[in-house]
Each structure stands twice: as structure tokens, then as C-alpha cells.
């Protein structure tokens, strides 16, 4: 496990929808070391304001050194990223944190909500081949259909079965993506989830109740991403604090206190 501070170069930026941009970066050292569920800390500017790096899940990493991030614009740092043009430099630190466990044998279900879909594509393309890709079910939820269209195709190309839900009913199920899970649970050996905390809470509860192992990728505000500042705390099971950047971002659902 090695981390790198690498000046990546923007190769492409694609506006997938109003909200989502996909950045393709050339970051060979990080791309080579990256594993699904890990993240990078990106410098979102060239001045001291904003000061801190922002965490982004690794959306894809390729052998040719390309590293992809899926970015949803929500504030100053993400706006800056959405304005980058090919050729621009972007300083990254990564790959960071503990990723998903890829050791499962048997059908898996991926549940992604909104920008939480980002790490799931990298995961879907690295599931162990002996778990048979055809037994990967992906449940994707978002606000509206435009956010999902491109991504749905990409999961399908990996051989996953995709079901969708949208808040406005414009694609698939009209409602929360977690409402699709009960039907997808029977037979699943493991569930991986990333998305809004409330969604993951529902997913985790359904899995725990059904006795199915579940891993969730959590978020917290981070200063360092390296385990040094102790800033990225969440409430862990058993009245403990866990640090998202080091103990996570991927936690076994049993490690998290889902109800504070």
C-alpha cells in the first residue's frame, strides 16, 4: 500500500448531465495502485482559497495510467474541477483509504444513490471473475433520468443487471433506490453501497436484518485524507469513533453506528 502525491494532467472532461462531470486524468502511479473503493485528495484550485483538498472516489483506473473521477458540482471546489480543460494540471494524493472487499464468492448487489454511484463502476469492473459477472445486480438511484443514462449503459456493458429509480419517476422506479433492494436481496451474498447517508442506513438495516454482509462507503469532511488530522470522524458501533479516511471510506455495515 503506497500513496503518491502526483501532478496529474487532465486528458478529458465530459459533462454527463447538469450535475455530473467525468474527469479523465493521467495519473499513472495512482492509477496503477488504485483499488475499488479507494479515493484521492484533489487540490481544487491554484491559490490558498479554497485551502484544503477535496476527497473523490476513484471512478475508474486503467493500466494506461488514466484515472477517472465522477464529480458532482456542489460548492467551490467541485465548481473549479468542472471548469478544468484538457492539459490542465491537478495535484492528487492517492490512492487512499480502505476499499471494498473483493473476496466474495457468489452474486453481489451494488446500491448507488446520486454521486455515490462513482466508486461502484470501478468496483463492478473488478469483481472477482469467479463470482460471475452476470450475477452482479446494480441498483442505481438519482434525482432524475439524465444523471443516470450514461452510467446505466456502462454498468450494462460490464454485464451487470441494472435497475433504476428516480426521485421524479423519469426513469425506472418512482421513489428511493433502496426500495428496490428487498426484491434484489434474496440470493445475494454481499451488498455494496454508496450514496446519501439515509439511503445507506436503510440498505445497511435491510442487509443486517437479512443476515447479508454489507459494505458501505461513507463520507466525512476531511483535512488530510491520510489519518493524520483525526478530523474525519464518524460514530462507529459500540460508542467508538472511526476515521473515514483510514478505517474507511468503506466500512462493514456492522462497524457503523447507523443511528446517531
Amino acid at each position, binding site marked *: 500500500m503506497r500513496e503518491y*502525491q502526483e501532478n496529474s494532467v487532465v486528458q478529458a472532461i465530459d459533462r454527463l448531465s447538469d450535475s455530473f462531470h467525468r474527469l479523465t486524468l493521467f495519473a499513472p502511479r495512482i492509477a496503477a495502485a488504485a483499488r475499488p473503493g479507494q479515493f484521492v485528495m484533489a487540490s481544487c484550485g491554484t491559490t490558498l482559497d*479554497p485551502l*484544503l483538498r477535496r476527497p473523490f472516489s476513484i471512478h475508474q483506473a486503467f493500466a494506461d495510467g488514466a484515472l477517472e473521477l465522477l464529480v458532482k458540482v456542489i460548492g467551490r471546489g467541485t465548481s473549479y474541477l468542472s471548469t478544468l480543460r484538457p492539459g490542465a494540471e491537478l495535484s492528487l494524493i492517492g490512492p487512499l483509504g480502505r476499499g471494498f472487499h473483493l473476496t466474495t464468492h457468489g452474486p453481489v448487489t451494488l446500491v448507488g444513490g446520486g454521486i455515490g454511484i462513482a466508486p461502484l463502476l470501478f468496483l463492478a469492473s473488478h469483481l472477482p471473475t469467479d463470482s460471475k459477472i452476470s450475477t452482479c445486480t446494480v441498483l442505481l438511484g438519482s434525482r432524475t433520468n439524465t444523471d443516470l443514462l450514461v452510467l446505466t449503459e456502462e454498468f450494462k456493458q460490464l454485464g451487470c443487471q441494472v435497475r433504476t429509480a428516480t426521485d421524479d419517476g423519469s426513469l425506472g422506479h418512482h421513489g428511493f433506490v433502496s426500495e428496490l433492494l428487498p426484491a434484489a436481496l434474496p440470493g445475494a451474498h454481499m451488498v455494496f453501497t454508496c450514496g446519501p447517508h439515509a439511503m445507506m442506513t436503510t440498505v445497511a438495516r435491510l442487509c443486517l436484518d437479512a443476515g447479508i454482509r454489507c459494505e458501505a462507503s461513507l463520507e466525512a469532511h476531511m483535512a*488530510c485524507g491520510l*489519518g*493524520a*488530522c483525526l478530523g474525519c*470522524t464518524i460514530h462507529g458501533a459500540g460508542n467508538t*469513533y472511526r476515521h473515514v479516511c483510514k478505517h474507511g471510506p468503506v466500512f462493514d455495515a456492522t462497524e457503523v453506528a447507523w443511528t446517531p
Partner: protein
Amino acid sequence: MDTLTTAVPPEMKISLGPLHLANPVMTASGTFGYGAEFSNLVDLQRLGALVVKGISLEPRPGNPPPRVVETACGMLNAIGLENVGLDRFIHQKMPFLRTCGSRIIVNILGDSIDEYAILAEKLTLVTGVDGLEVNISCPNVKKGGVAFGTVPEMAAAVTRAVKNATDLPVIIKLSPNVTDIAAMAKAVDESGADAVSLINTLIGMAIDIHSQKPKLANIIGGLSGPAIKPVALRMVWQVARTVSIPVVGIGGIGTAEDAIEFLLAGASAVQIGTANFYNPAAAEQILTGIEAYLSRQGASSIHDIIGSLRTTI
């Protein structure tokens, strides 16, 4: 200046009383973990010293989240002094630190003078500990810290207790949240400290206007980063003119230029804090940059610039 001067690298060694460092660039407590966190990104051997996260007698869980928030050119933290406690520090963290090739300074904190003394005594026996930095200033914990760092007599008492308990070099780390920083430094100097370091964080706050709640669960936190550099530099200058012991400058240092400002103001060494977060390469870049500056100035030693600010006052 522009002539081909000798390639002899400038002398970078400095001393904080009995503590001798290969160069003046240290990493600040709480911003560099226990060293291992940065070992892939930083050549730890190049650091003048590595100051570890503040250690208390017992482990502390710290504050509930959220604990960090970004501000204009700075950040607030309310970690609440989470740390592994003395025993786990000695057994789990020191083995790596002993091998990392840098001087190790252990930052300590306590709720009472006794606790400081016990920590100092116990750490004296630990191989590989090169010095102690005493945090009398952390604003995050409700009892303890704050009072020591704001009342000269109490700071003096802690200093004496720690000095009596150890023969390790002792640096007292000052809080900036006081009316008269020079008086604090003087009290600590007269009580036998080997050096002072400053500044710890300024107390600050931020509010989320949507939820109408504080952005930190602890409501208030410590402000660090480039935003505080002017205040830190002023205090270092005031203290360096007041005390006879060496001064370690801390606060918003992110570049060699920043570090050189502190050296000119009278600091014998500097600590890099928040910059480690946004640029892990900062400490090494700063070291290289100071060396280049000395060469450009035709200075043969770091001591040529320490305290050499030109003023008429």
C-alpha cells in the same frame, strides 16, 4: 550575488538549548500524526524534527463530529485532543518513530500539573524520544489546557514541574489567545524552559446558516493555516525580543518565504502544520527553499538570518 559562488551548502544545524537539530524545519503536533501517516509522501530523514500528536496519560476519544471545517485561507479544528494515550504511544507508535531517522519530539498535554510531570517522567525513560513539547494552550478541551496557557503563573508552574521531572529538552508551546504573549514567554523562560514554540491555534467559530447550527460539534475550534500567519509572526517577533531562550515559529507556514519571515523575526526553527494537509511536500520544499535563499544571499549559515530583521525600533 550572481557570481558563481562556492557550492558549499549552507550550514543548517540549529540548537534549541540542549536539543540539536540537523535543520530548522519541523512538523507541528497534530498535523503529522505519528509520522507513519506521511512516510510514503515525505522523506522523514530530512526533517529537522518531527513533533507527534499531543499525548495524554490516558487515551482520549476526542470530540464528536464534525471536527474540521475550512475557512478563508485557514481551517478550524476541534479534534478534542484525541490520542492513543501514553502506553499505546510507547508501544505502538515509538517503534516506527525510532527508525524513521528524524529527531522525535513528543507533544504532551494534561489536565493537571501532576499529569504533565508524570508524562515527562515516563517519557524520559523511552528510547528515541529527543525532547518534549508541552501543550499548555489547546483550546479544545474544557478543563485543563486553556488556563495554563493564559495565566503566566500557571504556565510557569507547569514549566517547573516538567523540568523537574525530566532531563529531556523541554519546549513550552504558547497559546496566542492572550493579551500579552511576551509576558507568557517571559514567565516560561524564567521557569527554566529550554525553548518556546508558538503559536498554537487562535480560537474561532463557524456557523452553517442553513441548519443554523455551529459547523463544529464543539461549537468553537482552533484556527490554523495561512490566515493566521501575520498574527503568529508578530507574536514570534515580540517573544524573540523578550526571551533569552530559542523560539520556534509556528503558524500558517506553507512556503520557504513564510519560514524565512519567521527566521528573520527571530525564530531559530519553524514548524509546519496545516500545510502538511494541503501539500505534504511542504516541509521538504521549505527546507530546500531556505537553503537556496541562504545561497542566494551569500550566507554560509542559517544563523546569519535568524533574528536579522532590519528595523529602526
